[in-house]
């Protein structure tokens, strides 16, 4: 075979290989991407079939009817998964209190894998930001919402479409993204 043709073919194939591997490395080694993080997406709709099921926290029985709270206020709403054993939850708690006071009837809390007594103690000592709050027994709501950990916060439109989810405490960048998403949800 012609040596020139072979030289050309090697050059072309080599260039293709370099571009291919280079693109893979470029995206694979991006500093923005942590392969340990589970990809959370707003295109996945939570399943509301068990929403409102769970155990009331002792002392917070008046706050146990999620359906009544949802029926009482029209418009977008927020679901926040928390736990009394969860340290990052305490970081966002002051902001949740602020948000709950500014938006009555909009913030719904679900205690994940928590003893209702411990969750109640936590809300008594640190304050209750929630219009409605339940302990998520059997973690059914957690799985239905595609939860990847606590805290996790979901912003829904009035008709229950997922607009934004924060896979971590509402502090720093996640907090400002949440504020923007909540402002956009009002429109």
């Amino acid at each position, binding site marked *: 075979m012609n040596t020139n043709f072979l030289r050309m*073919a090697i050059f072309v194939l080599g260039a293709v290989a370099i571009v*291919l591997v280079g693109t893979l490395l470029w995206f694979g080694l991006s500093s923005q991407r942590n392969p340990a993080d589970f990809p959370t997406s707003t295109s996945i709709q939570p399943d509301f079939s068990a929403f409102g099921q769970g155990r009331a926290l002792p002392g917070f029985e008046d706050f146990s009817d999620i359906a009544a709270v949802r029926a009482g206020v029209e418009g977008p709403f927020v679901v926040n998964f928390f736990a009394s054993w969860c340290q990052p939850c305490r970081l966002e708690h002051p902001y949740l209190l602020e948000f709950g006071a500014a938006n009555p009837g909009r913030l719904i809390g679900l205690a994940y894998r928590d003893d209702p007594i411990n969750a109640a103690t936590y809300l008594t000592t640190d304050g209750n930001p929630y219009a409605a709050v339940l302990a998520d027994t059997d973690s059914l709501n957690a799985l239905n*919402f595609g939860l990847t*950990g606590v805290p996790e916060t979901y912003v829904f439109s009035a008709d229950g479409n997922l607009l934004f989810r924060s896979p971590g405490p509402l502090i720093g960048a996640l907090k400002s993204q949440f504020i923007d998403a909540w402002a956009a949800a009002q429109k």
Partner: protein
Amino acid sequence: MMTNQTRPILALLCLAVLTSLMTSFASAQTVNEIRAKALYTELRCVVCAGQAIAESNAELAQDMRAQVTVLIAANKSDAEIRDWFVTRYGDAVLMNPPLKPLTLALWFGPLLIFVLGAGITGLVMMRAQSRLVEKER
């Protein structure tokens, strides 16, 4: 009327029915256990990097395992159980990504890179060969 001759036959019959009932119950249980264990290895623990829920003791993995057994008890098929998790967590919850247009590069990319490499190696060898032939002339 029960005679002395029919009595042992009846007893034997009862025993046979009882053991068959017991074994079928036990085998149904083990079938479900085998199915559950297989599904545990197919579903990703969403809080642990690169681990199936079979290998993880994370609380969310425990919840997911419990849900698998609940769905099996509710007579859901393996495909339905996989779908149950995929609708809530997305394709990433499966240890093996499904084969679809978006994941073609994932499944066949390494093969493509291998073929490219083999092609380049082959061509380099052919070139060396033809140079040698030209020199000998």
